[in-house]
Protein backbone atom coordinates (compact mmCIF):
# COMPACT_ATOMS: atom_id res chain seq x y z
CA UNK A 1 0.00 0.00 0.00
CA UNK A 2 1.19 3.51 -0.74
CA UNK A 3 2.01 5.25 2.51
CA UNK A 4 3.40 8.53 1.23
CA UNK A 5 2.54 9.95 -2.15
CA UNK A 6 4.03 13.17 -3.44
CA UNK A 7 2.06 14.10 -6.55
CA UNK A 8 3.37 16.65 -9.08
CA UNK A 9 4.57 18.97 -6.37
CA UNK A 10 6.04 22.35 -7.14
CA UNK A 11 7.77 24.35 -4.43
CA UNK A 12 10.56 26.80 -3.80
CA UNK A 13 11.70 29.88 -1.95
CA UNK A 14 10.07 33.13 -3.05
CA UNK A 15 10.68 33.61 -6.75
CA UNK A 16 13.09 30.72 -6.97
CA UNK A 17 11.32 27.53 -7.90
CA UNK A 18 13.17 24.39 -6.86
CA UNK A 19 10.78 21.47 -7.43
CA UNK A 20 9.17 20.97 -10.83
CA UNK A 21 6.21 18.58 -10.84
CA UNK A 22 8.07 16.17 -8.62
CA UNK A 23 6.37 12.88 -7.77
CA UNK A 24 7.55 10.08 -5.52
CA UNK A 25 5.88 7.20 -3.69
CA UNK A 26 6.95 5.40 -0.53
CA UNK A 27 5.10 2.16 0.16
CA UNK A 28 4.54 0.71 3.60
CA UNK A 29 7.61 -1.02 5.07
CA UNK A 30 9.66 0.20 2.15
CA UNK A 31 13.02 1.92 2.33
CA UNK A 32 13.38 4.55 -0.37
CA UNK A 33 16.58 6.44 -1.06
CA UNK A 34 16.43 9.78 -2.79
CA UNK A 35 19.76 10.34 -4.49
CA UNK A 36 20.99 13.63 -5.83
CA UNK A 37 23.92 15.99 -5.89
CA UNK A 38 24.07 19.21 -3.87
CA UNK A 39 21.37 21.61 -4.98
CA UNK A 40 19.27 18.93 -6.69
CA UNK A 41 16.30 19.78 -4.47
CA UNK A 42 16.43 16.83 -2.06
CA UNK A 43 16.19 18.94 1.06
CA UNK A 44 13.44 21.09 -0.45
CA UNK A 45 11.42 17.99 -1.32
CA UNK A 46 11.79 16.65 2.22
CA UNK A 47 10.95 20.04 3.72
CA UNK A 48 7.85 20.17 1.54
CA UNK A 49 6.82 16.74 2.79
CA UNK A 50 7.07 17.81 6.44
CA UNK A 51 5.55 21.22 5.72
CA UNK A 52 8.46 23.58 6.32
CA UNK A 53 8.20 24.61 2.68
CA UNK A 54 4.79 25.20 1.16
CA UNK A 55 3.83 23.26 -1.95
CA UNK A 56 2.59 25.81 -4.47
CA UNK A 57 1.14 23.07 -6.67
CA UNK A 58 0.43 19.38 -6.32
CA UNK A 59 -0.57 17.21 -3.38
CA UNK A 60 1.06 15.32 -0.59
CA UNK A 61 -0.97 12.33 0.51
CA UNK A 62 0.00 10.46 3.64
CA UNK A 63 -1.72 7.36 4.91
CA UNK A 64 -4.72 8.06 2.70
CA UNK A 65 -5.11 11.66 3.82
CA UNK A 66 -4.22 14.78 1.87
CA UNK A 67 -1.84 16.62 4.22
CA UNK A 68 -0.74 19.38 1.82
CA UNK A 69 -2.20 22.19 3.93
CA UNK A 70 -1.36 20.88 7.39
CA UNK A 71 1.17 22.52 9.72
CA UNK A 72 4.46 20.64 10.34
CA UNK A 73 3.62 19.77 13.94
CA UNK A 74 0.31 18.26 12.84
CA UNK A 75 2.07 16.17 10.19
CA UNK A 76 4.42 14.89 12.91
CA UNK A 77 1.47 13.86 15.02
CA UNK A 78 0.01 12.04 11.98
CA UNK A 79 3.09 9.80 12.01
CA UNK A 80 5.85 11.43 9.99
CA UNK A 81 9.16 11.69 11.85
CA UNK A 82 11.66 14.05 10.32
CA UNK A 83 15.38 14.21 10.86
CA UNK A 84 17.01 17.36 9.53
CA UNK A 85 20.71 17.65 8.73
CA UNK A 86 21.14 19.20 12.18
CA UNK A 87 19.26 16.19 13.60
CA UNK A 88 18.92 17.43 17.21
CA UNK A 89 18.09 20.47 19.32
CA UNK A 90 21.57 21.63 20.36
CA UNK A 91 20.75 23.32 23.69
CA UNK A 92 18.76 20.41 25.10
CA UNK A 93 20.35 17.40 26.77
CA UNK A 94 20.38 13.94 25.19
CA UNK A 95 17.50 12.85 27.40
CA UNK A 96 15.49 15.98 26.65
CA UNK A 97 16.03 15.47 22.94
CA UNK A 98 14.62 11.97 23.26
CA UNK A 99 11.64 13.27 25.23
CA UNK A 100 11.14 15.87 22.54
CA UNK A 101 11.13 13.11 19.93
CA UNK A 102 8.18 11.63 21.78
CA UNK A 103 6.51 15.00 22.29
CA UNK A 104 3.43 14.03 20.30
CA UNK A 105 3.00 10.82 22.33
CA UNK A 106 1.93 10.38 25.92
CA UNK A 107 4.39 10.15 28.80
CA UNK A 108 4.29 6.40 29.41
CA UNK A 109 5.01 5.69 25.77
CA UNK A 110 7.87 8.13 25.91
CA UNK A 111 9.49 6.41 28.86
CA UNK A 112 9.16 2.99 27.26
CA UNK A 113 10.52 4.24 23.94
CA UNK A 114 13.44 5.99 25.64
CA UNK A 115 14.49 2.71 27.26
CA UNK A 116 14.29 1.05 23.88
CA UNK A 117 16.32 3.84 22.30
CA UNK A 118 19.04 3.38 24.91
CA UNK A 119 19.09 -0.32 24.03
CA UNK A 120 19.75 0.49 20.40
CA UNK A 121 22.19 3.26 21.22
CA UNK A 122 24.00 2.32 24.45
CA UNK A 123 26.46 5.21 23.90
CA UNK A 124 23.68 7.70 24.36
CA UNK A 125 22.81 6.43 27.82
CA UNK A 126 26.24 7.46 29.10
CA UNK A 127 25.66 11.00 27.78
CA UNK A 128 22.09 11.36 29.02
CA UNK A 129 22.61 14.63 30.83
CA UNK A 130 25.00 16.18 28.32
CA UNK A 131 23.87 18.85 25.91
CA UNK A 132 23.41 17.60 22.37
CA UNK A 133 25.68 20.41 21.17
CA UNK A 134 28.59 18.79 23.01
CA UNK A 135 28.25 15.46 21.17
CA UNK A 136 30.41 14.50 18.19
CA UNK A 137 28.87 14.61 14.72
CA UNK A 138 28.34 10.85 14.69
CA UNK A 139 26.77 10.74 18.14
CA UNK A 140 24.53 13.60 17.17
CA UNK A 141 23.22 11.68 14.15
CA UNK A 142 22.67 8.62 16.36
CA UNK A 143 20.71 10.79 18.77
CA UNK A 144 18.81 12.18 15.79
CA UNK A 145 17.84 8.69 14.65
CA UNK A 146 16.85 7.71 18.19
CA UNK A 147 14.86 10.93 18.52
CA UNK A 148 12.85 10.26 15.35
CA UNK A 149 12.05 6.74 16.55
CA UNK A 150 10.62 8.07 19.82
CA UNK A 151 7.28 9.01 18.29
CA UNK A 152 6.85 5.46 16.95
CA UNK A 153 6.30 6.98 13.49
CA UNK A 154 4.75 5.44 10.41
CA UNK A 155 7.58 6.80 8.30
CA UNK A 156 11.09 8.08 8.97
CA UNK A 157 12.16 10.93 6.73
CA UNK A 158 15.88 11.66 6.95
CA UNK A 159 17.83 14.45 5.35
CA UNK A 160 21.45 13.39 4.69
CA UNK A 161 22.15 11.23 7.73
CA UNK A 162 25.77 11.04 6.50
CA UNK A 163 26.44 14.75 6.21
CA UNK A 164 29.44 15.97 8.15
CA UNK A 165 30.48 12.46 9.20
CA UNK A 166 33.77 10.65 8.72
CA UNK A 167 33.59 7.48 6.55
CA UNK A 168 33.83 5.35 9.70
CA UNK A 169 30.74 6.97 11.17
CA UNK A 170 28.89 6.86 7.85
CA UNK A 171 29.36 3.12 7.94
CA UNK A 172 28.10 2.98 11.51
CA UNK A 173 24.99 5.01 10.68
CA UNK A 174 24.25 2.70 7.75
CA UNK A 175 24.71 -0.36 9.98
CA UNK A 176 22.33 1.06 12.55
CA UNK A 177 19.72 1.90 9.94
CA UNK A 178 20.08 -1.56 8.42
CA UNK A 179 19.63 -3.24 11.78
CA UNK A 180 16.69 -1.01 12.51
CA UNK A 181 15.12 -1.81 9.17
CA UNK A 182 15.60 -5.55 9.55
CA UNK A 183 14.10 -5.61 13.04
CA UNK A 184 11.29 -3.08 12.82
CA UNK A 185 10.56 -2.68 9.10
CA UNK A 186 9.76 1.00 9.31
CA UNK A 187 8.98 2.90 6.14
CA UNK A 188 11.90 5.15 5.36
CA UNK A 189 12.70 7.96 2.99
CA UNK A 190 16.36 8.90 3.04
CA UNK A 191 17.82 11.77 1.02
CA UNK A 192 21.52 11.24 0.35
CA UNK A 193 24.34 12.02 -1.99
CA UNK A 194 26.42 9.18 -0.61
CA UNK A 195 25.90 6.07 -2.76
CA UNK A 196 26.81 3.84 0.19
CA UNK A 197 23.20 4.26 1.32
CA UNK A 198 21.91 2.52 -1.79
CA UNK A 199 22.52 -0.79 0.01
CA UNK A 200 19.51 0.01 2.15
CA UNK A 201 17.22 0.92 -0.69
CA UNK A 202 14.39 -1.08 -2.18
CA UNK A 203 13.61 1.78 -4.47
CA UNK A 204 15.73 4.65 -5.65
CA UNK A 205 14.75 8.03 -6.97
CA UNK A 206 17.30 10.31 -8.54
CA UNK A 207 16.54 13.97 -8.29
CA UNK A 208 18.24 16.42 -10.63
CA UNK A 209 17.46 20.13 -10.81
CA UNK A 210 14.19 19.53 -9.01
CA UNK A 211 12.97 16.78 -11.31
CA UNK A 212 12.89 13.02 -10.87
CA UNK A 213 15.20 11.63 -13.56
CA UNK A 214 15.29 7.99 -12.49
CA UNK A 215 13.06 5.58 -10.60
CA UNK A 216 13.95 1.95 -9.96
CA UNK A 217 15.95 -0.64 -8.09
CA UNK A 218 19.69 -0.66 -7.33
CA UNK A 219 20.28 -3.13 -10.15
CA UNK A 220 18.43 -1.03 -12.68
CA UNK A 221 20.45 1.93 -11.52
CA UNK A 222 23.75 0.15 -11.99
CA UNK A 223 22.80 -0.83 -15.52
CA UNK A 224 22.23 2.76 -16.48
CA UNK A 225 25.51 4.06 -17.94
CA UNK A 226 24.99 7.81 -17.56
CA UNK A 227 23.95 7.49 -13.97
CA UNK A 228 26.71 5.08 -13.17
CA UNK A 229 29.24 7.62 -14.38
CA UNK A 230 27.69 10.49 -12.47
CA UNK A 231 27.28 8.78 -9.13
CA UNK A 232 29.71 5.91 -9.07
CA UNK A 233 32.53 7.50 -11.05
CA UNK A 234 34.78 4.86 -12.54
CA UNK A 235 33.71 2.26 -10.02
CA UNK A 236 31.46 -0.57 -11.16
Amino acid at each position, binding site marked *: MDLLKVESVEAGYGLIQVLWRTSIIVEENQCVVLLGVNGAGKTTLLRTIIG*LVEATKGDIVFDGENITGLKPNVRVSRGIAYMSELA*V*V*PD*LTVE*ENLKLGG*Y*VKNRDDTRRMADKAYEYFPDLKAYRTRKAASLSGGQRKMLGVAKTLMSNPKILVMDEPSSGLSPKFVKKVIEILKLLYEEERPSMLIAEQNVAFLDLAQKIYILDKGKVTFTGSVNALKENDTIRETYFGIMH
Partner: protein
Amino acid sequence: MDLLAYTIIAGIMYGIFFGLVGLGLNIIFGVMRMINLAHGDFIMLGAFLAFWLFYLFGINPLLVIPIATTVFFLIGFPLYYAFVPRLSKSSDPEMLSFILFFGLSQVIEAVIILAFGNNQRSIPSTVFGTSSFSILGQSFPKAWLATTLVAFAAFIIIYWYFRHTRLGYATRAIMSNREEALISGIDIDRVSAIAFCLGLVFASVAGIFSYFMIGAAYPSMGPDLTTVSFAIIVLGSLGSPLGTVIGGLLYGVAVMFMQTYFSSWANILPYILLIVIMLLKPEGLFGKAARSA
Protein backbone atom coordinates in the same frame (compact mmCIF):
# COMPACT_ATOMS: atom_id res chain seq x y z
CA MET B 1 32.26 50.88 55.97
CA ASP B 2 28.62 50.83 57.05
CA LEU B 3 27.66 52.78 53.98
CA LEU B 4 29.50 50.33 51.77
CA ALA B 5 27.83 47.31 53.41
CA TYR B 6 24.45 48.97 53.09
CA THR B 7 25.09 49.78 49.45
CA ILE B 8 26.06 46.22 48.58
CA ILE B 9 23.22 44.52 50.44
CA ALA B 10 20.64 47.00 49.17
CA GLY B 11 22.14 46.61 45.70
CA ILE B 12 21.66 42.85 45.80
CA MET B 13 18.02 43.10 46.89
CA TYR B 14 17.40 45.85 44.40
CA GLY B 15 19.15 43.74 41.77
CA ILE B 16 17.04 40.63 42.35
CA PHE B 17 13.95 42.81 41.95
CA PHE B 18 15.33 44.27 38.72
CA GLY B 19 16.03 40.75 37.51
CA LEU B 20 12.27 40.24 37.82
CA VAL B 21 11.67 43.53 35.98
CA GLY B 22 13.66 42.23 33.00
CA LEU B 23 12.59 38.56 33.19
CA GLY B 24 9.36 38.84 31.21
CA LEU B 25 11.01 40.79 28.41
CA ASN B 26 13.72 38.15 28.12
CA ILE B 27 11.29 35.22 28.06
CA ILE B 28 9.36 36.85 25.24
CA PHE B 29 12.53 37.71 23.35
CA GLY B 30 13.94 34.22 23.84
CA VAL B 31 10.89 32.50 22.44
CA MET B 32 9.56 34.96 19.89
CA ARG B 33 12.74 36.85 18.92
CA MET B 34 10.75 40.04 19.35
CA ILE B 35 11.34 42.93 21.73
CA ASN B 36 8.14 43.73 23.55
CA LEU B 37 8.39 47.53 23.57
CA ALA B 38 5.23 47.64 25.69
CA HIS B 39 6.98 45.63 28.43
CA GLY B 40 7.26 48.62 30.76
CA ASP B 41 3.59 49.40 30.22
CA PHE B 42 2.64 45.95 31.42
CA ILE B 43 4.73 46.62 34.53
CA MET B 44 2.73 49.83 34.94
CA LEU B 45 -0.54 47.91 34.46
CA GLY B 46 0.52 45.49 37.19
CA ALA B 47 1.27 48.44 39.45
CA PHE B 48 -2.13 50.03 38.77
CA LEU B 49 -3.94 46.75 39.32
CA ALA B 50 -2.23 46.39 42.69
CA PHE B 51 -2.96 50.01 43.58
CA TRP B 52 -6.70 49.81 42.89
CA LEU B 53 -7.11 46.44 44.56
CA PHE B 54 -5.32 47.82 47.61
CA TYR B 55 -7.10 51.17 47.57
CA LEU B 56 -10.62 49.81 47.02
CA PHE B 57 -10.53 46.49 48.86
CA GLY B 58 -7.39 46.63 50.97
CA ILE B 59 -5.94 43.61 49.21
CA ASN B 60 -2.33 42.92 50.12
CA PRO B 61 0.12 43.05 47.17
CA LEU B 62 1.06 39.41 47.77
CA LEU B 63 -2.55 38.38 47.12
CA VAL B 64 -2.59 40.44 43.93
CA ILE B 65 -0.09 37.98 42.39
CA PRO B 66 -2.62 35.20 41.63
CA ILE B 67 -5.13 37.79 40.43
CA ALA B 68 -2.56 39.37 38.09
CA THR B 69 -1.55 35.94 36.83
CA THR B 70 -5.14 35.20 35.85
CA VAL B 71 -5.75 38.64 34.36
CA PHE B 72 -2.59 38.69 32.23
CA PHE B 73 -3.12 35.17 30.94
CA LEU B 74 -6.60 36.28 29.88
CA ILE B 75 -5.16 39.38 28.18
CA GLY B 76 -2.07 37.66 26.77
CA PHE B 77 -3.72 34.85 24.82
CA PRO B 78 -6.02 36.96 22.63
CA LEU B 79 -3.29 39.57 22.23
CA TYR B 80 -0.84 36.94 21.03
CA TYR B 81 -3.21 35.28 18.61
CA ALA B 82 -4.46 38.61 17.27
CA PHE B 83 -1.03 39.87 16.32
CA VAL B 84 1.88 37.48 16.40
CA PRO B 85 0.93 34.69 13.94
CA ARG B 86 0.16 37.39 11.38
CA LEU B 87 3.44 39.17 12.12
CA SER B 88 5.40 35.96 11.70
CA LYS B 89 4.09 35.55 8.18
CA SER B 90 5.46 38.93 7.06
CA SER B 91 8.85 39.26 5.44
CA ASP B 92 10.33 41.25 8.33
CA PRO B 93 8.59 40.23 11.56
CA GLU B 94 11.19 41.82 13.87
CA MET B 95 10.83 45.31 12.42
CA LEU B 96 7.04 45.10 12.31
CA SER B 97 6.97 43.86 15.89
CA PHE B 98 8.88 46.97 16.97
CA ILE B 99 6.23 49.19 15.41
CA LEU B 100 3.37 47.09 16.71
CA PHE B 101 4.57 46.90 20.30
CA PHE B 102 5.51 50.58 20.26
CA GLY B 103 1.95 51.35 19.21
CA LEU B 104 0.58 49.04 21.89
CA SER B 105 2.70 50.86 24.46
CA GLN B 106 1.24 54.23 23.42
CA VAL B 107 -2.30 52.87 23.48
CA ILE B 108 -1.94 51.36 26.95
CA GLU B 109 -0.51 54.60 28.31
CA ALA B 110 -3.25 56.72 26.72
CA VAL B 111 -6.05 54.45 27.94
CA ILE B 112 -4.74 54.48 31.52
CA ILE B 113 -4.41 58.27 31.47
CA LEU B 114 -8.00 58.55 30.18
CA ALA B 115 -9.28 56.15 32.77
CA PHE B 116 -7.39 57.26 35.87
CA GLY B 117 -5.73 60.59 35.02
CA ASN B 118 -2.02 61.21 34.81
CA ASN B 119 -1.43 61.04 38.55
CA GLN B 120 1.13 59.33 40.69
CA ARG B 121 -0.13 56.46 42.84
CA SER B 122 1.52 54.61 45.62
CA ILE B 123 1.01 51.84 48.13
CA PRO B 124 2.64 52.54 51.50
CA SER B 125 5.43 50.12 52.34
CA THR B 126 3.88 49.77 55.77
CA VAL B 127 1.46 47.33 54.17
CA PHE B 128 4.07 44.72 55.16
CA GLY B 129 4.28 46.03 58.73
CA THR B 130 6.09 48.99 60.21
CA SER B 131 8.98 47.05 61.67
CA SER B 132 12.20 46.60 59.76
CA PHE B 133 14.56 43.66 59.44
CA SER B 134 18.30 43.63 59.47
CA ILE B 135 21.02 41.90 57.52
CA LEU B 136 24.62 42.19 58.75
CA GLY B 137 23.68 45.07 60.99
CA GLN B 138 21.95 47.03 58.25
CA SER B 139 18.23 47.55 58.56
CA PHE B 140 15.78 47.57 55.69
CA PRO B 141 11.99 47.92 55.40
CA LYS B 142 10.03 44.64 55.46
CA ALA B 143 8.57 45.51 52.07
CA TRP B 144 12.05 45.08 50.58
CA LEU B 145 12.28 41.62 52.00
CA ALA B 146 8.86 40.67 50.61
CA THR B 147 9.78 42.04 47.18
CA THR B 148 13.13 40.26 47.11
CA LEU B 149 11.55 36.96 48.13
CA VAL B 150 8.82 37.26 45.50
CA ALA B 151 11.41 38.01 42.79
CA PHE B 152 13.56 35.14 43.97
CA ALA B 153 10.56 32.80 43.91
CA ALA B 154 9.80 33.92 40.36
CA PHE B 155 13.25 32.76 39.27
CA ILE B 156 12.87 29.44 41.05
CA ILE B 157 9.50 28.91 39.37
CA ILE B 158 10.77 29.75 35.89
CA TYR B 159 13.80 27.49 36.41
CA TRP B 160 11.55 24.65 37.50
CA TYR B 161 9.20 25.29 34.58
CA PHE B 162 12.02 25.18 32.05
CA ARG B 163 13.73 22.10 33.46
CA HIS B 164 10.95 19.90 34.71
CA THR B 165 7.83 20.41 32.66
CA ARG B 166 6.91 19.26 29.19
CA LEU B 167 5.94 22.78 28.15
CA GLY B 168 9.19 24.02 29.66
CA TYR B 169 11.48 21.89 27.54
CA ALA B 170 9.30 22.58 24.52
CA THR B 171 9.84 26.29 25.23
CA ARG B 172 13.59 25.75 25.50
CA ALA B 173 13.56 23.78 22.27
CA ILE B 174 11.96 26.76 20.52
CA MET B 175 14.54 29.10 22.06
CA SER B 176 17.36 26.83 20.92
CA ASN B 177 16.17 26.13 17.39
CA ARG B 178 12.73 27.06 16.16
CA GLU B 179 12.73 24.79 13.16
CA GLU B 180 13.92 21.70 15.04
CA ALA B 181 11.21 22.40 17.61
CA LEU B 182 8.60 22.61 14.88
CA ILE B 183 9.59 19.33 13.23
CA SER B 184 9.59 17.65 16.63
CA GLY B 185 5.86 18.20 16.66
CA ILE B 186 5.69 21.25 18.92
CA ASP B 187 2.81 23.62 18.29
CA ILE B 188 5.00 26.73 18.22
CA ASP B 189 2.09 29.16 18.45
CA ARG B 190 0.56 27.54 21.51
CA VAL B 191 3.85 27.28 23.41
CA SER B 192 4.83 30.82 22.36
CA ALA B 193 1.45 32.16 23.44
CA ILE B 194 2.00 30.68 26.90
CA ALA B 195 5.53 32.15 27.01
CA PHE B 196 4.09 35.51 25.95
CA CYS B 197 1.54 35.35 28.78
CA LEU B 198 4.27 34.37 31.25
CA GLY B 199 6.26 37.38 30.06
CA LEU B 200 3.30 39.66 30.80
CA VAL B 201 2.62 37.99 34.14
CA PHE B 202 6.21 38.45 35.35
CA ALA B 203 6.12 42.07 34.16
CA SER B 204 2.92 42.68 36.09
CA VAL B 205 4.29 41.05 39.24
CA ALA B 206 7.32 43.35 39.00
CA GLY B 207 4.80 46.18 38.73
CA ILE B 208 2.91 45.11 41.84
CA PHE B 209 6.08 45.46 43.92
CA SER B 210 7.54 48.44 42.07
CA TYR B 211 6.17 50.81 44.73
CA PHE B 212 8.59 49.54 47.32
CA MET B 213 11.70 49.56 45.15
CA ILE B 214 11.27 52.44 42.71
CA GLY B 215 8.54 54.57 44.29
CA ALA B 216 5.27 55.88 42.90
CA ALA B 217 3.60 54.53 39.78
CA TYR B 218 2.25 56.73 36.98
CA PRO B 219 0.80 56.02 33.53
CA SER B 220 3.81 57.22 31.53
CA MET B 221 6.41 55.21 33.48
CA GLY B 222 6.42 52.40 30.90
CA PRO B 223 9.02 53.42 28.29
CA ASP B 224 11.71 54.16 30.90
CA LEU B 225 11.16 50.75 32.47
CA THR B 226 11.36 49.11 29.05
CA THR B 227 14.76 50.73 28.53
CA VAL B 228 16.00 49.63 31.94
CA SER B 229 14.71 46.10 31.30
CA PHE B 230 16.42 46.03 27.93
CA ALA B 231 19.72 47.12 29.50
CA ILE B 232 19.35 44.36 32.09
CA ILE B 233 18.66 41.55 29.66
CA VAL B 234 21.43 42.69 27.33
CA LEU B 235 23.74 42.77 30.36
CA GLY B 236 22.75 39.24 31.41
CA SER B 237 22.21 37.63 28.06
CA LEU B 238 19.56 38.17 25.46
CA GLY B 239 17.26 35.21 25.10
CA SER B 240 18.42 33.40 28.23
CA PRO B 241 15.80 34.08 30.91
CA LEU B 242 17.91 32.83 33.79
CA GLY B 243 20.77 35.09 32.71
CA THR B 244 18.42 37.95 33.55
CA VAL B 245 19.05 37.52 37.26
CA ILE B 246 22.76 38.18 36.68
CA GLY B 247 21.94 41.26 34.61
CA GLY B 248 19.56 42.42 37.33
CA LEU B 249 22.13 41.95 40.09
CA LEU B 250 24.83 43.84 38.18
CA TYR B 251 22.40 46.61 37.42
CA GLY B 252 21.05 46.75 40.97
CA VAL B 253 24.45 46.94 42.62
CA ALA B 254 25.66 49.48 40.05
CA VAL B 255 22.62 51.70 40.60
CA MET B 256 23.03 51.56 44.37
CA PHE B 257 26.68 52.55 44.09
CA MET B 258 25.82 55.40 41.77
CA GLN B 259 23.02 56.63 44.03
CA THR B 260 25.25 56.44 47.06
CA TYR B 261 28.42 57.93 45.68
CA PHE B 262 27.51 59.86 42.49
CA SER B 263 23.79 60.34 42.86
CA SER B 264 23.34 62.94 40.13
CA TRP B 265 24.60 60.43 37.54
CA ALA B 266 22.40 57.52 38.60
CA ASN B 267 19.62 58.16 36.09
CA ILE B 268 21.74 57.76 32.99
CA LEU B 269 23.33 54.52 34.22
CA PRO B 270 21.12 52.12 32.21
CA TYR B 271 21.85 53.99 29.01
CA ILE B 272 25.59 54.02 29.63
CA LEU B 273 25.55 50.31 30.49
CA LEU B 274 23.59 49.61 27.33
CA ILE B 275 26.05 51.46 25.12
CA VAL B 276 29.13 49.98 26.76
CA ILE B 277 27.78 46.43 26.53
CA MET B 278 26.71 46.88 22.93
CA LEU B 279 30.17 48.12 22.03
CA LEU B 280 32.21 45.63 24.00
CA LYS B 281 30.22 42.44 24.34
CA PRO B 282 26.97 42.49 22.36
CA GLU B 283 26.12 38.89 23.27
CA GLY B 284 25.82 39.88 26.95
CA LEU B 285 28.33 39.23 29.70
CA PHE B 286 27.39 35.61 30.15
CA GLY B 287 25.57 34.77 26.96
CA LYS B 288 26.49 33.03 23.81
CA ALA B 289 25.85 34.80 20.55
CA ALA B 290 22.14 35.44 20.69
CA ARG B 291 21.96 36.68 17.16
CA SER B 292 23.33 33.55 15.55
CA ALA B 293 19.80 32.19 15.28
